[in-house]
């Protein structure tokens, strides 16, 4: 690989990149992580049956957190960019016109893949309510975003701990081209390779949908194997650990042996941890092969073939060549650009990448790889 390649012209921070026509002529960007938001709970209520509407009003959302807000207060209201609040009211990510002007048009985004967080059914204690909420949030994504704006593709949110409902939801949505992926969170009740989740993978594989696994969620455990850290900076820095748990579990449980066409996209946990984890798993596999006879290949081979990884938040070591090494080790065809719009740690597609990234590599990450993994037709 070329570590000393000159700064790619398209990534030149001084260039005027903000004019829409010029940006679009330059590159059609596929963004693996855009977060839509409800203007208010009212937006969601119209997609809930009277029974669950009433439940939401009386009992509210009760997640495996013990409180209505995150245990680690974010760095900014709703963890959002201060400039992403719509002038007319509502939350960042809730106003389609602002999403268009501030992001889709400004950067020449061809597709943005949606991943709803917050009140969306991921970690509800009441499993029936969880199923109802996920259906509602999926309908809402389609009606409010994917239908009026074809550049936005919805993610099928599933009730992870209610497998039967999750499979039914995938079946309900899968034929609709508004949806480009199945969307899950990484902090679950069991590690994600556990057999209880396999019907979800079977359904995703059957419909050719990748599964986006995004950091966050609360599966009812302390966020780490040694209890609860104190600070948001620790939680944020530690998101890569829940991604590593998920990847380890998927590979070692044999999910990719069982579902050979399954594609998984790891979202928002950074990416630099992937090579070290692969090396570690390969060494342990060599030692403890007898424990996992269902694996026919080295863990790193399953990872290389089945797992894609988004680039946000971009890794920023003091020496930027270290990022290029990591990208090389992961594989240039497995990295996907993500912006995390409208959140505070947003990555600008023209400014986030390290200097020295060869132009063709940037093109792959910003566009080509996403086209290969998501169902965009």
């Amino acid at each position, binding site marked *: 690989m070329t570590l000393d390649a000159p700064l790619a012209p398209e990534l030149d921070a001084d260039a005027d990149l903000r004019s829409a026509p010029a940006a679009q002529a330059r590159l059609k960007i596929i963004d693996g992580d855009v977060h839509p938001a409800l203007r208010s709970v009212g937006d969601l209520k119209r997609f809930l049956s009277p029974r669950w509407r009433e439940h939401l009003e009386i009992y509210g959302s009760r997640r495996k957190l013990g409180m209505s807000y995150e245990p680690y207060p974010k*760095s900014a209201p709703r963890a959002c960019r201060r400039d992403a609040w719509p002038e007319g009211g509502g939350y960042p990510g809730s106003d389609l016109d602002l999403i268009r002007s501030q992001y889709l048009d400004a950067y020449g985004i061809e597709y943005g893949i949606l991943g709803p967080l917050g009140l969306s059914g991921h970690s509800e204690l009441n499993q029936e309510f969880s199923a109802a909420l996920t259906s509602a949030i999926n309908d809402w994504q389609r009606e409010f975003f994917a239908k009026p704006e074809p550049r936005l593709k919805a993610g099928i949110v599933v009730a992870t701990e209610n497998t039967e409902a999750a499979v039914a939801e995938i079946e309900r949505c899968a034929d609709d081209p508004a949806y480009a992926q199945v969307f899950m969170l990484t902090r679950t009740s*069991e590690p994600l390779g556990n057999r209880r989740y396999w019907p979800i993978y079977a359904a995703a594989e059957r419909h050719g949908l990748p599964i986006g696994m995004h950091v966050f969620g609360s599966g009812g455990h302390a966020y*780490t*194997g*040694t*209890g609860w850290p*104190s600070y948001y900076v620790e939680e944020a820095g530690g998101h890569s650990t829940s991604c590593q748990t998920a990847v380890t579990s998927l590979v070692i449980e044999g999910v990719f042996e069982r579902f050979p066409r399954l594609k998984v996209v790891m979202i928002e946990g950074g990416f630099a941890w992937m090579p070290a984890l692969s090396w570690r798993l390969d060494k342990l596999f060599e030692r403890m092969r007898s424990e996992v006879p269902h694996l026919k290949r080295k863990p790193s081979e399953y990872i290389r073939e089945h797992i894609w990884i988004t680039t946000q938040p971009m*890794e*920023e070591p003091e020496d930027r060549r270290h990022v290029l090494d990591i990208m090389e080790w992961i594989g240039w065809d497995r990295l996907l650009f993500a912006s995390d719009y409208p959140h505070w740690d947003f990555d600008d597609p023209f400014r986030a990448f390290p200097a020295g990234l060869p132009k063709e590599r940037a093109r792959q990450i910003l566009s080509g790889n996403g086209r290969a993994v998501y169902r965009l037709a």
Partner: protein
Amino acid sequence: MSDILSGAIDCDIHPRVPTPRTLSRYMDDHWRDTVEVRGIETWDSISYPPNAPLTSRPDWRKAGADTEPAKAARETLDRFGFAHAICNSLFPVQCFRDENLAAAFARALNDWLAAEWLDKDSRLKGSAVLPIQSVERSVEEIERRAGDPRFVQVLMLVMGEHPLGKSMYWPIYAAAERHGFTVGIHAGSSYHHALTGSGWPTYYLEDYAAQSLGFHTQLGSLVCEGVFVKYPKLKVVLIESGVTWLPPYLWRLAKFWRGVRNEVPWIDRSPEEYVRDHVRLTLQPFDAPPSAAHIGRIMDQLQSDDMLLFATDFPHWQFDGDDMLPAGLSPALRRKILIDNAIATYPRLGRHS
């Protein structure tokens, strides 16, 4: 190879885990009776299943090399000319729920180590296992060992009740700093929580893989809570962590610190700087491909020649034959890893009784 390794300090070896009955010989009547009357026959942690391949290299298992100091010395110290080896006991004191039981076993374990290992070979040094369930009892154990210069380190597991940077643990760091003990954090869990933030993995392979995630958490906690601001002389050694996870985690932690540092205003330097000044890592296992080119890039990522400490992790099966150093290290770096870094990390190593 043996010439290269001559004089090296092996910062992580493991005596065979003793049985509760063996330890009961070092207990008072009450606790000896407890072991007997309550029938406490075995107490192995699932972090190291005794018969798992990783727990003992086949040739060392066959020779019973970890059962007594003379046999262990034959396989490592004598054979390669190591100057010292630091014994880390893995009897799972940390798993108990009863802090009194933990304190009794920790004390017996450390007495046992002194009598059965340290007394037998002056090259052997020890880590004092702390009954971490109680900070007060841990400090008592540190005070108890302070007068014995053969104990150079106090030892905790990487996964316990709480992240180790929390202020409740600070009396331990104060006592360690006061007596010149290095603080060792070793792979392994108390299993007081699910092993991961997403529950319990199925396989032992996953369990061992997840130990490195515990090191992520502890490093973040020690830095962000300000332990190194409060205890500027403290040195922490991450033992059996895998090593190569570190640079990527530090990039992340430093990046988020830059973004939200108003949350932890006492941290006035980048986390990477605190880590380079205060944190060391033992060399085995070293999670990397065998190629010198990869290893060269990884060493460059570490941005420091001071952080790695040589270790065999005897008798755990981390390497075959004598292949215990990563490929392609320069002679100068090799010397630092083998000898100089350990001397700088363990102030008590130079003290003699």
